[in-house]
């Protein structure tokens, strides 16, 4: 079942444009959104969350258009980025107290469970947390309000290999509980490790949106790894 669908998304800036971006997210699967820096990953994700006003196209979640159902849909999705922190000098506990008041689905037991699982000290401020911990705090918030779809912008960027591995294992565990995960990355090994589907974007256009196995079958040369395939495709795109 498709839980999120992006259709013909267009956004034009003076020096960059998203061109007819379309793809869908299947329920209970991990979709890796890959592309080099500046390919349009963050613009696409922000458009999916109405943080960017697209010039054209539609975004649907659970069969409903995002426009007009924003508040209800946001209750069922979670977003995280490791690079931005909110209220850097407020205690996590204070932020959580406010956030939970917005969700009637808030599960305090789940919150306590993830707080302990991720070893988060909620008396700390975001300023005192590493990028990896910030991602975990955002994930904890999303999971405590029982988000069905997680949209994660570069969650593994800036993480050490151990934290990255830990996070990718967590994605797999969450996927096994039925959560749909869509995460952007420019690190190909992240996709190789845990993604079921691949959405590949280059210069603002979607090159492919396929299950990983189909992607490899369509684009890989014999014996080529995903990393080699991606590097070759990007190389060809530059010289095209």
């Amino acid at each position, binding site marked *: 079942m498709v839980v999120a669908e992006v259709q013909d998304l267009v956004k034009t800036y003076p020096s960059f444009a998203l061109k007819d971006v379309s793809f869908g997210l299947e329920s209970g699967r991990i979709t890796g959104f890959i592309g080099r820096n500046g390919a349009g990953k963050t613009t696409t994700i*922000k458009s999916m*969350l*109405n*943080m*960017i*006003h697209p010039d054209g196209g539609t975004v649907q979640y659970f069969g409903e258009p995002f426009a007009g159902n*924003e*508040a*209800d849909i*946001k*209750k069922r999705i979670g*977003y995280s980025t490791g690079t*931005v*922190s*909110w*209220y*850097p*000098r*407020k205690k996590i506990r*204070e*932020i959580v*107290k*406010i*956030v939970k*008041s*917005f*969700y009637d689905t808030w599960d305090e037991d789940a919150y306590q469970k993830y707080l302990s699982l991720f070893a988060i000290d909620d008396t700390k401020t975001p300023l005192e947390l590493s990028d990896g911990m910030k991602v975990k705090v955002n994930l904890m918030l999303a999971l405590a309000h029982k988000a069905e779809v997680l949209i994660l912008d570069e969650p593994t960027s800036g993480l050490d290999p151990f934290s990255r591995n830990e996070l990718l294992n967590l994605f797999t565990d969450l996927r096994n509980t039925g959560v749909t995960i869509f995460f952007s990355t420019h690190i190909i090994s992240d996709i190789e490790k845990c993604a079921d589907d691949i959405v590949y974007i280059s210069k603002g256009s979607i090159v492919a949106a396929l299950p990983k196995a189909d992607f490899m079958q369509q684009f890989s040369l014999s014996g080529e790894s995903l990393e080699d395939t991606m590097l070759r495709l990007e190389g060809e795109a530059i010289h095209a």
Partner: protein
Amino acid sequence: MRNILQKEMRLSASILSYLFIPFGLMFLLPGYPILCGPFFVTLGIFQSFQSAREANDIVFSALLPIAKKDIVKGKYLFVCLIEGCALLLMAVAVCLRMTMLSQSAVYRSNALMNANFFALGMACVIFGLFNLIFVGGFFQTAYKFGRPFVTFIIACFLVIFMAEALHHIPGLEKLNAFGTDEIVLQLLLLVAGMLIFLLTTVLSCRRACRQFEKIDL
């Protein structure tokens, strides 16, 4: 809307917004341009916008399960709450000066504007201008607030200067009435000030909601 206001008060607000509310009591100062009181209150609110921007408050709010326009309404609600608290203190000061202190020599010999209902109405006008120029101006970009604040300062001090000067013009002395003198006129001017506040705030909020929808965060 209650939880949005709570978020504004507990996460986004600078402590200075609350600490500057008592500047409303400047309405008790004799020999001082009392309309500087509302200006200082707006200075406190400005600090909240500054600290909220540093804390990525707008992006955080955009991710909460609320419509984008509710972010704007929440900010206006918070601003109006602070302004309302300050107006309440000003009203207390005005009532004291119009009743118990109406014959006090320090106020009677005051060359500057008297704290009466007209002054309270002018405070409403200043807050209305703040909402129109500064808050509305901020939501043109949801990021830049320098120019809107400087524009507001100029408009605010023009209003203060005008309000201080008016009662010196022959025929307009009634604006500086003491006690319950000219009470009907005083009340009419207060109501006019409140209407200007309401009109500027509602119009500015509606325009800001429309503009904020188009902004890329």
